[in-house]
């Protein structure tokens, strides 16, 4: 694309892109998000391209018999649709057909039947409660969502800037550069009451205001793409599926606080996001949307990508900036705050991916529009990664204030299999759990804080009755301890001792005093740890103790795990009436835990038993069973 040096040229580029997109009357969008790629969508893309190339003169039939000649079929790789459970996904426009669980061997049929003849392949459609859904937009999973940030994800080819321009991309940047002063931009963002989507929910406008009023003139914009919560992939999807939206947000922030350089910190485990961002940045630079004198104005801005090595703690602001600077990623004490002395000790706007992606829409549609979505104190939408024991896992976006019930049952399709709902872990290792009693609370920053949880970056792990809450607490504590930077005592040593206790409990060696000790440590760690990671490390334990204390007590007193999760609690028992005394189980036991006299019933010593199950599979008489 040619260099764009003024407003007119940008608008021309936009309409040219739009024409290009519209000229192909059939667009085949194959999801190339990480999930679908893992499911083989790369192969599907190649096959579809091959089919289109091999059949240059075929006619395309859609709807009312519109027929078109050659060159009309465009095959694109799109970003993540969010419906990862059903991937690999293929969307066919203009019909809006969504084919699910597509395999490379389906391609020929799709091409020859759907593309050539306009027929629907029913086997590839999504079905729910006996209904088939032809159009993506009609699927309940999508219907109940409000996809603003994720609007383009899955619908445009993320690897071409023209696709973003065709959707009206960079209009917000254009607006701020030509119609707004930096202060007006900050005012608009402040009025929108946009709050940071990375977890803390801090006011974005206030953050920008603070940076803008620093005496130091060298300022930085940093985008936190170090999404580290287990099971969270909201930011990854934006970076992979609509990178320009986030870049545009960063540019607007830079204009607002008069920053010259921007950094995106992306974890190295997101190679596709890095690749797409690199492409997006170089394409933006090529056409003059990044670099010196953007659109002929005196605004200049550059964006660099920094790859994180995968430390969870690098999602913390000061650890993240330390890591960019080339130091060990460890949080430092505050004050000074990042807005005063952030990256390279300069005033820094540090927002996460989703926050920046909200910015262009707010500028375009206005603060009022933004505030009309969501709740009063938490306006806008929030993307959640919905995982766990729910039927339709994936990436969703809903207005703030949506209830858990709507998310799990309307969007997620309810609990998977025969399970019953037990709890949701929200906010990952820094968050807490929500239970049946919280089903109808509207989720936003403040409502969750009140009940001892946090929205975090938006991970939602649904758990059913097969999940042991003590084990969940142990899992997250293990995660936090492994990811602790080791700087402050409460986090380094305290979470280790909490983990020790939890490990004791799940292995059947817990004592009742352990529960008090857990509470004592949790309180002290929360009160004294150095950074946010440490201060919130005990949250999963505190909230599970609060809502599921009975499970802890069962583990400790009765040595029982009702969800049949903690294998230390299970007992292999030999039924004396079935045992023939053949000794096969004893001979197969690797721990020497089984003894007895031949031709008399054998017994298992539970203290020696390692619960491997070798005896059970060895027994020819079905005499060995498990008791919990």
């Amino acid at each position, binding site marked *: 694309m040619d260099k764009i040096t003024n407003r007119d040229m940008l608008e021309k580029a936009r309409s040219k892109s739009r024409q290009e997109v519209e000229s192909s009357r059939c667009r085949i969008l194959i999801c190339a998000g990480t999930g679908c790629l893992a499911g083989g969508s790369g192969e599907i893309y190649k096959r579809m391209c091959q089919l289109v190339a091999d059949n240059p003169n075929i006619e395309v039939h859609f709807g009312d018999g519109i027929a078109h000649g050659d060159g009309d079929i465009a095959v694109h790789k799109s970003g993540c649709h969010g419906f990862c459970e059903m991937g690999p996904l293929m969307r066919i426009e203009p019909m809006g057909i969504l084919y699910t669980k597509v395999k490379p061997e389906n391609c020929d049929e799709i091409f020859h039947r759907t593309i050539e003849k306009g027929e629907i392949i029913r086997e590839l459609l999504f079905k729910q409660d006996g209904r088939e859904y032809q159009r993506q937009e009609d699927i309940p999973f999508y219907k109940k969502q409000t996809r603003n940030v994720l609007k383009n994800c899955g619908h445009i080819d993320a690897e071409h800037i023209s696709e973003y321009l065709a959707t009206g991309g960079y209009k917000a940047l254009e607006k701020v550069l030509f119609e707004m002063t930096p202060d007006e931009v900050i005012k608009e963002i402040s009025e929108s009451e946009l709050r940071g989507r990375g977890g803390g929910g801090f006011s974005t406008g206030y953050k920008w205001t603070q940076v803008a009023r620093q005496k130091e003139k060298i300022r930085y914009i940093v985008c936190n793409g170090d999404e580290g919560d287990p099971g969270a992939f909201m930011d990854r999807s934006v970076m992979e599926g609509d990178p320009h939206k986030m870049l545009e947000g960063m540019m607007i922030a830079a204009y607002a606080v008069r920053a010259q350089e921007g950094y995106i910190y992306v974890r190295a485990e997101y190679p596709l996001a890095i690749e797409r961002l690199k492409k997006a940045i170089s394409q933006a630079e090529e056409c003059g949307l990044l670099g010196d004198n953007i659109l002929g104005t005196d605004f200049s801005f550059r964006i660099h990508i920094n790859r994180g090595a995968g*430390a969870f703690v690098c999602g913390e602001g000061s650890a993240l900036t330390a890591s960019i600077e080339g130091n*060990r990623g460890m949080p*430092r*004490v505050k*004050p000074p705050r990042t807005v005063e002395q952030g990256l390279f000790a300069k005033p820094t706007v540090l927002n996460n991916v989703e926050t920046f992606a909200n910015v262009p829409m707010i500028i375009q549609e206005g603060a009022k529009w933004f505030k009309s979505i969501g709740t009063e104190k938490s306006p806008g939408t929030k993307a959640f990664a919905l995982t766990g024991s729910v039927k339709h896992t994936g990436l969703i976006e809903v207005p703030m204030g949506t209830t858990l019930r709507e998310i799990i049952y309307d969007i997620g399709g309810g609990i998977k299999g025969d399970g019953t709902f037990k709890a949701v872990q929200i906010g990952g290792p820094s968050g807490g759990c929500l239970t049946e009693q919280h089903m109808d609370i509207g989720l936003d920053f403040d409502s969750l804080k009140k009940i001892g949880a946090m929205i975090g970056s938006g991970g939602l792990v649904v758990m059913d009755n097969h999940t042991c809450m003590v084990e969940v607490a142990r899992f997250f504590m293990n995660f936090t*301890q*492994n*990811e*602790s*930077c*080791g*700087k*402050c*005592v*409460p*986090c*380094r*040593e*305290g*979470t*280790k*001792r909490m983990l*020790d*206790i939890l490990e004791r409990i799940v292995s059947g060696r817990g004592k009742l005093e352990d529960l008090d*000790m857990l509470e*004592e*440590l949790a309180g*002290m760690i*929360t*009160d*004294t*740890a*150095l950074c946010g990671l440490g*201060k919130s490390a005990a949250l999963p334990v505190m909230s599970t103790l609060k809502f599921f204390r009975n499970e802890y007590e069962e583990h400790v007193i009765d040595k029982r795990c009702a969800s049949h999760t903690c294998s230390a609690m299970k007992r292999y028992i030999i039924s004396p009436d079935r045992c023939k005394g053949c000794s096969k189980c004893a001979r197969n036991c690797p721990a020497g835990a089984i003894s007895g006299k031949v031709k008399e019933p054998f017994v298992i010593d539970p203290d020696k038993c390692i619960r491997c199950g070798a005896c059970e599979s060895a027994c020819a008489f079905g005499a060995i069973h498990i008791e919990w």
Partner: protein
Amino acid sequence: MISKKVDTMDMINIKINGIPCQAPAGSTILEAAHASGIAIPTLCYLKEINAIGACRICVVEVKGAKTLVPACVHPISEGMEIFTNTKRVHDARRTNLKLILSTHRQECLSCDRNGHCELQNLCYEYAVDSNMAFEGEKIQYEIDDSAVHMQRDNTKCIMCRRCTAVCNVAEGVGCIGVSGRGFTAKIGSSFGEKLAESKCIHCGQCIIACPTGALSEKDDTSKVWEAIADPDKYVIVQTAPSVRAGLGEEFLMDIGENVEGKMVTALRMLGFDAVFDTDWAADLTIMEEATELLHRIQNGGTMPMFTSCCPGWIKFCETFYPEFIPNLSTCKSPQSMFGAMAKSYYAKKMDIDPNNIVVVSVMPCTAKKFEITRDDMSGAGEGLRDVDISITTRELSKMIRRAGLLFNILPESEFDAPLGIASGAGHIFGASGGVMEAALRTAAEVITGKSLGAVEFKEVRGAHGIKEATYDIGGTPVRVCVLSGAANARTLLEDIKAGKRQYDFIEVMACPGGCVNGGGQPFQPSVVRNFSSVSSMRAEALYGEDASMELRKSHENPAIKQVYEEYLEAPGSDIAHHLLHTSYVDRSEK
């Protein structure tokens, strides 16, 4: 005491434990509380070196703050209300101490740090006992005793990072750092290499920075006891200038009390055959070094010339700036000069077989343990190491204690002659700027041939980083620079390379403040170090002794004159070179 004049405009009103008080703006809570008579315990904080708020022992309550805040780094603000002694604060500190103890090898009875351990003291103050430690995993780290001068026992490490900070900030070496995460985070050298394989310069600043027994010098006292007990050995002891300025602290005397007389008595009572003063060799060093400097100036030698008394600095230069090796004075340090003379001149004079002489040095320094193992340190002949055993001030105090000597009430006595006679110039070697000043006193008179009126060169005194001055010596302006703390050497050498600074003579001491603050000196806890300049107080002891003396110039020392007349001929002679000068190696490969 230096009182800082503070404008009332700069004062901030705060309340500590309900009592209104004022403190200068920019103070931390720790500083403001200390000025108001309230000590807040710390473990990781070391003023100007380590302010990272990691140990969370110093947490206090601040009205309006959601959580406890670390007093060591949290700045005060107008109207702030601080509570340092609430139950919440005490509980948090106690739990923190219990957590630290949970992973700490508690062998306090025999620990090198027993009695000087900041963790032990805090546990005592907060009534935290070893049986209160949490159950669970402990990591059994191997002790790293690879280095010649010290060892690291990570099972006693509390991860305060004072060692890594001092190694980076004060020394500019950075041979240790943190690796691993969470519970497995530990201090060590990069890629798991042993300390001996690292770029350590042996300064020992990490040891005196360590609040616990994780770091300690290699204890060589058993070798000394063995030598003394051997009837065939003639055991000579020499003590460095700074030892007398620090040793008293081990016996609860004031910082900066000069205990030379009691120390000499104690050494004699320990059974050394001769008790000599390294300060005599310091005078000898001045004769050789001043001569070398004049020779370089007059003959267009490599300039600027750097002093070479400090083995930490020598290793630093050899390791990081080998291009400056030609600039190093070839003079051995006073310790090694002494040893070479003891096994040649003194042996001959007393008719003792030098093979039977054991030279023990008592040094404020751990790098001296490395220096005695260097090549080209056998002036008196093959197999005759200049110095056989080097112990620190702390090790000497252990010997005194074990021998049951009541140090505080010992009578005073004088060093043996002739290797115990020293000038004031020799004494001030222990303070940063001392070698320079001593050299100037001699160089000025040697060049001009006239006796100096004033003998004090106060511009080069003081514990602060880089000091510079220009002196007119016999019509020649000599540009001198004095610095301590090897990190300052890095700054200076980079500036010299970039042509930003030009000097003729530069004194470098690796330890901040010079040898008085050496890595082998008595421990002072952070509560003392954070609020007073220990090195300046100790330096005062040496400057005070110098000022009280008649004999203040090395070249006027009769014992020095005598040794040149009887044995060495003249400064810089062949025999002097053979005995008193050495060579260096490029260590930049590793």
